[in-house]
């Protein structure tokens, strides 16, 4: 962000004690600009005289500060020094010329300071602005109408800087809006004093920095962010045409500006990428948390031979809200849940976590499926300010008898095997989604499984999986394909169905999570073995 366009400035108390620092500053800047040591001393002389004048005259009766600004001059090899004070108005140009011919007796003490200033500078400017004296010294590599001075004054180097002398000065008050995002960008600013805030991107632009160059140099000519004065502001502006003129005169400055723009572009890009990566990694973490909440160890109950269960949740790109769960309510009852939370992203994942936990908590109390859904629905509604909802199918299998009791809260009905090569919908009322209607009655349906029966639970991410032609995998295709799986173990069923959907989609990325749970009832194994 720091554009080091060389306008340098130094602000110190207006006291003789500050003089050394000012003169060292000038000496350093002059050396950077390639001025000879001879010329540097001449420039120091002019600056010393100006500052001493300010201390002695402008601030004769009250303390204050002096600011020196070192800027690039209008012509190559020139510098412009501005010296500013807030003392009494005083134009050094109006000081009477000393009588250079006077002898020792007649010579007046003093009067030489202003004379030296005029002698050393190509041009001496003065303006009174906002209760300030601003003296401008334009200085070349040699004293004007030079005496036969040093043999060869070195040429000023390519040190860069804005010719502030040929730019327009603007002052703004704290809180002023310099420009708004979307405004037409017609000029760039050099911040001489104060600071700006860019609220949209949370950046601060300080003294010595440049802003608005992107608007000038990019093809869009529109402000990408607003700029508000954090403090009273003094800026120098230059419009597009002048920038172009400047470029033709000073290619080194042009290069510097373009460089600055590229730097800004890269910085902006990096900031955006970092923000994006941060969000991505947050989503990834949310996704990992979501997945880690689902039981994923198969077989989950290796010592239970009465049933066989396998499940998978295939996440879409974004964090979705699919979930499944299964757990033993007691020694004889297995609860199986599948659900799909509305929406996507982190909120959906959080809502899903709440639903899953509530369902398990209620189920472990030994309630019927309808009562579980009813209680969870009642719990969700008062807190559900985000208006999210969840579809749930909950089933409890009595592993001894094969009885299943189930309740549906707006979920696609599971499929159940109906003889070899056939699947059909598991019948029963489909209630409404949980979290939407308070006091909605959820009913419990009962059915008896026979050993070898398979219940296949899924979310709409499966039946609505799409191929490149925007065709849905569809319930019909699902039922027909599932028919080929009767008699197989649940892990195989899930693997095959997953492969079938992937083959159908043929590379079209899924738009939704896809979840499948396959439950096979094997019959009360110990009863079989508990024969004679």
């Amino acid at each position, binding site marked *: 962000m720091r554009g080091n366009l060389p306008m340098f400035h130094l602000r110190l108390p207006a006291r*003789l*004690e500050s*003089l*050394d620092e000012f*003169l060292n500053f000038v000496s350093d800047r002059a050396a950077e600009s390639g001025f000879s040591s*001879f010329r540097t*001393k*001449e420039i*120091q*002389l002019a600056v*010393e*005289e100006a500052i*001493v004048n300010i201390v002695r005259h402008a601030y004769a009766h009250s303390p204050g500060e002096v600011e020196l600004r070192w800027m690039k001059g209008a012509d190559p090899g020139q510098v412009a020094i501005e010296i500013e004070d807030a003392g009494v108005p005083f134009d050094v140009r109006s000081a009477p010329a*000393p009588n*250079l*011919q*006077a*002898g*020792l*007796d007649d*010579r007046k*003490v*003093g009067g*030489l*300071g202003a*004379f*030296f200033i005029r*002698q050393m500078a190509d041009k001496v400017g003065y303006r009174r602005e906002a209760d300030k004296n601003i003296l401008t010294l334009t200085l070349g590599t040699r*004293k004007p109408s030079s*005496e036969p*001075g*040093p043999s060869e004054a070195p040429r000023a180097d390519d040190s860069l800087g804005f010719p502030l002398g040929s730019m327009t000065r603007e002052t703004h008050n704290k809180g002023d809006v310099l420009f708004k995002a979307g405004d037409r960008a017609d000029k760039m600013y050099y911040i001489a004093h104060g600071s700006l805030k860019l609220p949209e991107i949370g950046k601060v632009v300080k003294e010595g920095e440049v802003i608005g160059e992107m608007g000038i140099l990019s093809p869009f000519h529109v402000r990408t962010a607003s700029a508000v004065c954090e403090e009273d502001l003094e800026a120098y502006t230059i419009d597009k045409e002048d920038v172009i003129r400047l470029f033709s005169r000073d290619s080194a400055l042009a290069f510097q500006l373009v460089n600055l723009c590229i730097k800004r572009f890269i910085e902006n890009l990096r900031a955006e990428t970092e923000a994006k990566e941060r969000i991505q990694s947050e989503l990834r973490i949310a996704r990992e948390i979501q997945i880690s909440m689902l039981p994923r160890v198969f077989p989950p109950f290796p010592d239970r031979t009465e049933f066989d269960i396998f499940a998978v949740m295939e996440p879409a790109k974004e964090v979705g809200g699919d979930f499944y769960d299964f757990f033993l309510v007691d020694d004889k009852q297995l609860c199986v849940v599948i659900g799909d939370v509305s929406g996507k992203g982190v909120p959906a994942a959080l809502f899903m976590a709440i639903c899953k936990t509530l369902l398990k908590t209620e189920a472990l109390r030994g309630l019927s499926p309808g009562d579980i859904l009813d209680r969870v629905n009642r719990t969700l509604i008062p807190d559900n300010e985000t208006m999210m909802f969840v579809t749930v199918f909950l089933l409890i299998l009595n592993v001894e008898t094969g009885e299943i009791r189930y309740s549906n809260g707006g979920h696609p009905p599971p499929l159940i095997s109906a003889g070899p090569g056939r699947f059909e919908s598991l019948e029963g009322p489909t209630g409404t989604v949980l979290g939407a209607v308070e006091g909605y009655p959820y009913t419990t349906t009962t059915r008896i499984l026979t050993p070898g029966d398979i219940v296949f639970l899924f979310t709409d991410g499966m039946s609505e999986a799409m191929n490149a032609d925007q065709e849905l995998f569809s319930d019909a295709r699902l039922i027909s394909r599932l028919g080929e799986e009767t008699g197989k173990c649940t892990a195989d069923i899930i693997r095959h169905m997953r492969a079938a959907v992937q083959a159908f989609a043929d590379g079209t990325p899924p738009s939704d999570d896809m979840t499948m749970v396959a439950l096979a009832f094997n019959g009360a194994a110990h009863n079989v073995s508990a024969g004679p």
Partner: protein
Amino acid sequence: MKIEGKKENGHIVVSVEGRMDAISAPEFDRKCEEWIAEGTSVFIVDFSGLEYISSAGLRSLLVLGKKLTAKKGKVVIAALKDVVKEVFSISGFGSIFTIVDSVDAALGRI
């Protein structure tokens, strides 16, 4: 600024090195005032080590010259170089004081 005075037979050779500006010139004034108070009225100012002088330094020299004139004394300035020489030249100080190339030359003038 470094300032040293070597007194010999009623005159003094004052060597000034470094910078004679608004900060350091008062020190020159003070020292000279002491030497005048001690009765010295002929000053040879050796500027061979002086790198910079501003109007404040010239002012000190002018004050010194005026004081010594009043005491029938004199100032000879020796060995001006580069910017100091230029400053003397453009300010007309070269014609106020006796300017010589070296301290030896100055000794011959007194």
